[in-house]
């Protein structure tokens, strides 16, 4: 269905090609996941499927891409709209109309489909994706998961045989991500649509995949195969696969269900091990860095926070979780002084952040916003780092050192807009991290980051916490929470519904539990690393327990 033959893509002004000699084929009716490290060219590959690269991006594509036998060299994206539907990373950026129903019909209107058929297809898609209750809603009033489903529906109505999605769940909370993935598997199973999807959070998609296209980056050849084949060798793998490797399970489990069936001996073996042998030492909590008392906030008629009382201490990493729109970002904005409390008070290091000048705020609290690209406005990465050192009054080069620890090997003359999503986030992160404020806030920091970059981020955050910073991350990424958080706060409709040690909060939650915890429940282990430590404590590094 999708056929890449010796495709090499070079962007204008780039020294080396982004993709080198990529050849693979996706047969009809498969769900194919594109994986690779940050910046390896996943988005480029996806956008090349219907010719948006190079037609909208510039650059040169050598080789050939064909969809259902139609070549992108001869046909522009609009002439391929009836064969392939593309949903970008930010679905809202691609909406043309105002209402759900109009958006669904838009592609069909362009294709000149008969009104009666349009009417029927819109109804079908509304039912298929569970959107019928939203049909008359303005697009701007939808939540992230709903927007993503409408975006998928809006390309599906044209009746494409191929659906291409770039990180469809990266902005979604675990429940909304499930919703979208369930819709995708339904399309593959019931309608035989070929789906090509890029995703960093493999733990969410791998269990549904028929085929993996692995882009190793650095000009190495792509690896194509079934998930089990690819993950026996791949450096990027979801936690459940890592656990399978550690335990020597064969075949490698791809879903929690597979793993649980194999895990009984491992669970029995680990039952005797005490928490202290693998868990991080309990922190006795340092000084109070920030306090909110009775904090309330609202956007127009919507109440975002209803009386939030929280304390944050130095040396702890706090994870802020909850649905899209639960008030996480609002709380962070208050802590860094971007918003003034409607009622109640916020104090950071004894002062009210919204009353401080910009220069003073960065010394007490730093925030990496959700759309981290907005922090960057210089021409080159080098200039960006230099400006950051000057703004914060640091020794020249400080920011660059932090950057190399998070995303190594970024050329100093690269324009920030030419970086991949993940690299750009890494740069923004380093700018805020560089001045090492006592209170560090990160809003969805792992969006677009591969496992390696996440691991480096986790190390940086742990080191900062050990140096006495209070770190708060608002995130949907349960694996990162498991790896880094000491304490976990769950918000729902602007209220704190859970606040306690991360292990206690996430282990038994069906939504927030990481894969390892689900496999080993009721044991309170959260990460593969902890399992490793626990095995060592149980007195053997061999596999004698099997």
């Amino acid at each position, binding site marked *: 269905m999708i056929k890449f033959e010796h495709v090499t893509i070079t962007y204008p002004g780039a020294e080396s090609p982004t993709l080198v000699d990529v050849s693979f084929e996706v047969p009809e009716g498969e769900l194919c996941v594109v994986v690779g490290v940050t910046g390896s060219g996943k988005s480029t590959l996806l956008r090349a499927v219907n010719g*948006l690269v190079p037609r*909208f991006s510039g650059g040169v594509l050598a080789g050939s891409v064909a969809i259902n036998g139609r070549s992108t060299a001869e046909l*522009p*994206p*609009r*002439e391929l*709209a*009836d064969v392939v*539907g*593309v949903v*970008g990373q*930010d679905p809202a*950026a*691609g*909406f*043309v*109309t*105002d*209402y759900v*129903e*109009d958006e669904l*019909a*838009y*592609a069909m*209107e*362009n*294709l*000149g*489909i008969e*009104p009666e058929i*349009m009417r029927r297809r*819109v109804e079908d898609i509304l039912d298929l994706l569970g959107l019928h*209750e939203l*049909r*008359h*809603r*303005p697009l*701007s*009033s939808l939540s992230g998961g709903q927007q993503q489903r409408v975006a998928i529906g*809006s*390309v599906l109505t*044209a009746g494409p045989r191929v659906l291409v999605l770039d990180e469809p769940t990266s902005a979604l909370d675990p429940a909304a991500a499930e919703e979208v993935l369930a819709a995708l598997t339904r399309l593959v199973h019931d309608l035989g649509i070929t789906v090509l999807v890029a995703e960093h959070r493999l733990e969410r998609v791998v269990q549904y995949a028929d085929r993996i296209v692995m882009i190793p980056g650095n000009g190495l050849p792509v690896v194509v195969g079934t998930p089990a084949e690819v993950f026996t060798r791949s450096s990027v793998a979801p936690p459940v696969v890592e656990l399978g490797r550690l335990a020597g399970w064969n075949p490698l489990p791809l879903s929690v269900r597979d793993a649980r069936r194999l895990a009984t001996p491992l669970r029995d073996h680990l039952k005797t091990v005490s928490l202290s042998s693998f868990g991080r030492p309990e922190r006795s909590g340092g000084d109070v860095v920030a306090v909110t008392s009775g904090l309330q906030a609202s956007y127009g008629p919507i109440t975002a926070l209803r009386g939030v009382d929280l304390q944050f201490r130095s040396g702890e990493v706090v994870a802020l979780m909850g649905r899209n729109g639960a008030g996480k970002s609002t709380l962070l904005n208050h802590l860094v002084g*971007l918003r003034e409390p409607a009622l109640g008070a916020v104090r950071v290091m004894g002062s009210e952040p919204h009353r401080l*000048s*910009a*220069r003073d*705020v*960065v010394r007490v609290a730093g*925030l990496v*916003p959700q*759309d981290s*690209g*907005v*922090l960057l*406005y210089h021409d080159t990465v080098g200039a960006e780092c230099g*400006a*950051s050192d000057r*703004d914060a009054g640091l020794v020249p080069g400080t920011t660059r050192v932090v950057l190399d620890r998070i995303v190594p090997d970024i050329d100093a003359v690269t324009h920030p*807009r030419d970086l991949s999503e993940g690299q750009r986030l890494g740069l923004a992160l380093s*700018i805020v991290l560089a001045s090492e404020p006592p209170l560090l806030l990160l809003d969805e920091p792992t969006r677009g980051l591969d496992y390696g970059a996440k691991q480096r981020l986790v190390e940086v955050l742990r080191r900062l916490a050990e140096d006495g910073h209070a770190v708060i991350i608002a995130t949907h990424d349960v694996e990162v929470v498991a790896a880094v958080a000491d304490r976990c706060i769950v918000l729902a409709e602007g209220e704190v519904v859970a606040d306690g040690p991360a292990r206690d909060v996430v282990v038994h939650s069906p939504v927030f539990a990481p894969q390892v915890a689900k496999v080993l429940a009721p044991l309170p282990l959260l990460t593969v690393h902890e399992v490793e430590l626990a095995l060592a404590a149980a007195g053997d590094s061999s596999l004698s327990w099997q």
Partner: protein
Amino acid sequence: MGTDSAVAVRVQRLLHPGAWWIWALGLSACALRTTNPVLLCLIVAVAGWVVASRKADVPWARSFSSFLRLGAIVIVIRVVFQIVFGLRVSGTTLFSIPELTLPDWAAGVSIGGPVTLESLVAALYQGLRLAAVLACFGAATSLCSPYRMLRALPSVLYEAGVAVTIAFTFAPQAIVASRQVREARRLRGRSDRGIRAWSASALPVLEGALDRAVALAASMDSRGYGRRGGVSPAVRRRSVVLILLGLIALSVGSYGLLDPGAPAFFRLPALAFGAVALVGALVAGGATALRTRYRPDPWVVPEWFVSIAGVIVVLSFAAVSRSGDALQPSTNPLEVPSVPLLAVAGLLVAALPAWIAPQPPTPSATAASVAVAA
């Protein structure tokens, strides 16, 4: 369609954009014909009342207040210009500002001098007139979705679609982007006030908005926008030329109708030429166009009521202007403006769409509007 009309009155849906534009153009034509401050304020009030009761809960519907603000700025500028540069009118002198003697080549331009009450009132009326016209356009843009407006246009005109769609989304996106950039500056520890902060943030705001525009264009293209279909390039070119000519003729003609001093040739003949050119373009290009429409907006009873309300208010103003000069109250000598009852009655009719037009769909509305437009 006719059997549905009784249902359509009560059901929640968006009114046909054409009806709103006829209504708003009627109101603005009235505003252009008068300087009577009472009538102008009534026009703004009518526009505001209808917008408040019938706008949908979507981003573009929130633009009315910015049009009002723009109108206020226009009034202030008009009055300030009158004080500084305006022609000197005899009458009650309020105060004087120093007069500049200009060289001979600038004869006819005066700066400074005595400022009279009469001149200020006249300037205020003229500013108010522009503000009222702006309010009418603001009402039209907040009452109908730009996308629906485009969709209602004949398919040949749809060519201009990418540009217009992106233009409509550019302003709101630039506002969002500029707020983000301001916050980002603060997060980086830079001052968020002052000219320098603004100029430094202009580039990232533009870049961000442009990026989104390109993303939108890519999305439109990958969903088949602008497919060639069977229309040959020659036919397309011919219809585009005809459309441009027709539109120019139509605007000249409407200007001629509004300005009593325009030559007769610029009135009805220009309008007729424009109409013929547009119909020609539709016949030439429209027949072979590829696009189809999903659930086209119906034109039923409420649409007729709203557009007729727009026509009635124009007729009432025309009648008033024939029977006296109540539409142009004298400012020299200064008089208390009279209030022509016929024009007020016309404006009351123009306010009726606030009740006649169907309620726009609210987010909670589900099955209610399914029955319409079938």
